[in-house]
């Protein structure tokens, strides 16, 4: 499936970078994010718990970044799996200054497999777009100071935030934790943005399907 979209973020590109490079911000703006863990250069593991209504499911995702052209664009390679299906995606993300602040665009090319692939393209893209929209709204709220907690995994554990350099695994907690801000880490930023646009969409779609199972 192909998913193209964008968002307008109300801050200049530098402010946007500082917010979206904050892993604590990402951990609480990506719907359902439980933890983010750096496992190598440009590569991360994420645990997401998402659902609709009373339905929850936990999914493991991996992301790798490439083709970084700071500060205008990069490519993210993501994959995720859960019982109802799996996804592999390549997402191209662009950032450009505009009158209102920053225009962010994303273009995703995804291959979805397993039962979740059977729900029909319009429903899948509809759900993905909706979740992407939710994520970018949350980012925008962070930027404008109107921080809104997205209901995600309230019971997620708060893990300690590493301040050491990148050798040690860097793990960032979910929404429940309030974290001191860290020096911007572009990779985490980019990871977060990409995941927000895609994996959470997958997760929710999976969640829909999980909820339909009887």
């Amino acid at each position, binding site marked *: 499936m192909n998913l193209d979209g964008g968002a307008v973020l109300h801050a200049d590109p530098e402010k946007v970078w500082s917010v979206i490079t904050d892993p604590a911000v990402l951990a609480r703006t990506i719907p359902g994010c439980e933890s983010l863990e750096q496992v190598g250069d440009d590569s991360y593991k994420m645990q997401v718990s998402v659902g609709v209504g009373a339905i929850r499911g936990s999914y493991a995702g991996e992301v790798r970044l490439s083709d970084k052209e700071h500060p205008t664009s990069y490519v993210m390679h993501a994959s995720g799996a859960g019982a109802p299906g799996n996804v592999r995606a390549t997402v191209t993300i662009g950032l450009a200054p505009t009158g209102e602040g920053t225009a962010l665009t994303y273009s995703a090319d995804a291959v979805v497999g397993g039962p979740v692939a059977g729900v*029909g393209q*319009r429903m899948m893209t*509809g759900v993905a777009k909706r979740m992407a929209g939710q994520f970018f709204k949350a980012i925008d709220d962070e930027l404008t100071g109107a921080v809104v907690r997205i209901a995600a995994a309230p019971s997620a554990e708060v893990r300690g935030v590493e301040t050491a350099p990148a050798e040690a695994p860097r793990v960032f907690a979910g929404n429940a934790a309030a974290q001191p801000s860290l020096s911007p880490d572009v990779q985490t930023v980019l990871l977060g943005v990409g995941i927000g646009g895609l994996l959470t969409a997958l997760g929710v779609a999976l969640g829909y399907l999980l909820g*339909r199972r009887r």
Partner: protein
Amino acid sequence: MTTKLFGEPVRRREDVRLTTGRGRYLDDIGHTALAAAFVRSPHAHARIVDIDVEAALDVEGLVAIYTYEDLTGRMAEPLPVLIPHPQLHAPRTGYPLANGVVRHVGEPVAMVVATDRYIAEDVCDRIVVTYDELPVVVGVDAAVAAAATVHDDVPDNVSAHHLQETGDVEAALRGAENTLSFTQYVERSASTPMEGKGVHARWDADDKSLRVYSSTQASTSVRAAIAAKLELSLDRVEVIAPDVGGGFGVKIVHPWPEELLVPMAAIALGQEVKWSEDRREHFISAAHERQQKQEITVGFDDDGRITALDAHIWHDNGAYTPYGIIIPIITATQLVGPYVIPVYRARVESMYTNTVIVTPYRGAGRPQACYAMERTMDRIADKLGLDRAEVRRRNLIQPDQFPYDQQLIFQDGRPVIYDSGNYQGLLEKLTALVGWDDVAGLRADAESRGRLLGAGMALYVEGTGPGPYEGGHVQVLGSGKVLVSTGLTSQGQGHETAFAQIVATELGVPIEDVEVTTGDTRRFGYAVGTFASRAAVMSGNAIALAARGVREKALRIAADVLEADATDLEIDEGVVQVKGTPGTGVPLRTLAVLSNPLRYAFDEAAQQATQFAGPGDASLPPVAVGDAPGLEHIDYYSPVRSTFASGAHAVIVEIDPATWEIEIVKYAVVHDCGTMINPMIVEGQVHGGVAQGVGGALYERMAYDADGQLQNASFMDFLMPYASEVPAVVIDHQVTKSPLNPLGIKGAGEAGVIPGTAAIASAIEDATGRRIASMPISPTELYDLMRDENAERTARGTGVLT
């Protein structure tokens, strides 16, 4: 002594479950299945601009939404043209889900799957489809005028020019002593069974197989279509018709979009999916039939004998032609009826309109044909001042003229050759039954009561039992049960009983031991379907042949066991014995065991068939060369051509000149379907057909307006006859057996409906003295017609509500 049940009014076996609420219809199956529902076009002709599902995503219980973009491979191709024909020069079919364009109200645009039907409909309500409306064509006149087109690449809206001719009709007309011409219309109606369509699909992911239940008349062919479209091997698909609540033709066209989409969803989602349509869906997406405009020119001598007949007909085939031109062919070939027509030409233009597809409804073009021929007879009689029965008599094919070749090509691709019949006999019985010669007296009596009275009649010949074939499998089990299966389907015709009667009679077993299965591809894989009054002719004969095969084998084995000659043996009450010596034989169930040489005895009875149970002949193999284990036989009946049933109806109507209400005070039927397996069932078929004939003549029409909107898509406004609308019917029978098949059977399923419109139109005309040139006709329309001398037909008669 077993009573021979063939020909007896045996009470139906299926009624045991159907009167106690234990039928198993499509919607009774699959309680845990997901439910499908459809977003259907509200426009008769439009381009789809956008399909927005955003608002639907919030509905709790939503599982999937499919549109054309989700169809891949062969599913993305148009639906098949089931019956191609060289004269069908512009066939067009739709897609399972609309591909950018919709061409009739009701065409499916999106399929929704949800946890139950209520929720699925909630989702459908929230899906927003944006359309660009396009010009609409409704009714054959608008189709011909072609100010707008249904398909961009069919500029004249004609899908086919069907032509059948037996000579130079124009020359013959020029040479005729008399000619007359007229135009008449008949409007659209539909089968409208009490149960709509439905599909249930289950995909077994472990063995990668699909099981589909469908309320269909052609399960074998649906199976082939699903396998082809979903790109599955045929052996991975089974289709079963469960109990079906009526078909009358509407369930013969296939594959419905739903028959493909529901299995597709079941596979994609890994769960059972079920769809049962509601009544409005049925009105706007299941098939209709009947609408035609007919221009007839006939040449005849001063005695009323026809010398030439030219019929030019425009047939409304709806938006697509999945069923080809079968109805035009049937109209063209059956129009000649029981008459000698020296020179004949039929030209049927099959026209596209922005309405629901047109595929067979009981009669399948014959009612229209009968209407054309019989009203021609009426006009000849009128012109010459002759009695209408007498004119018909003078034109009838005589009993000694069979087989009679009408020199036409029928819907089975074979010649129209009437195999047997006695049309003279039909007419004589009819005039006696209805009291044709007493009508003048009845009219005077009615007049004294201030009422108008009229009589009408119509004769028909019906080609039934077209091929290519049907098959039968008869198997005797070691338990004594006799299993019978055939591939065609049942929708209430009593096949479980009629076919059991055949086997009970052929095999000499109690009917209680016989169990019949129809329409299940797991049980019988080669079949065509139930239509054209063919089940008794085709499956009846095939099953008889299969039973005879079993009988022959049983006698052969018994001859060995009883050390007698097979010709000295008979089967009575399931026991094979020497003729006339009860108590000394061997039961069929034992022969069934013995027919299957065993190594392992799984029960006590089976011990008889094991290797040490009795003296064997060590020089011969246990199963002889060319033989097979088991007491069973499969056989097929494949006819060289169709057989021709016939009949005649007469109607007496009384009309109240104040309200113009039309009451049928007498309805007489003479009916010839050859050999009857179960006369009670045959009569039931006649009763049901007559009710549909009366409905079509006086009450039923699909009221499309010029925008292609169906104004009466419910039982509140589409007038299905209740008991109060259906007259009592008196029936007489005639039997002219068919020489074409072993049992001598001709079909009976459609007979009751064929002449209704013609006979009733004739009677109303006789009562009022007013030309009736469009049917159906309501009291209001009759009133308007009576007041307007210049009107040629009723205001709605051309089939478009204005």
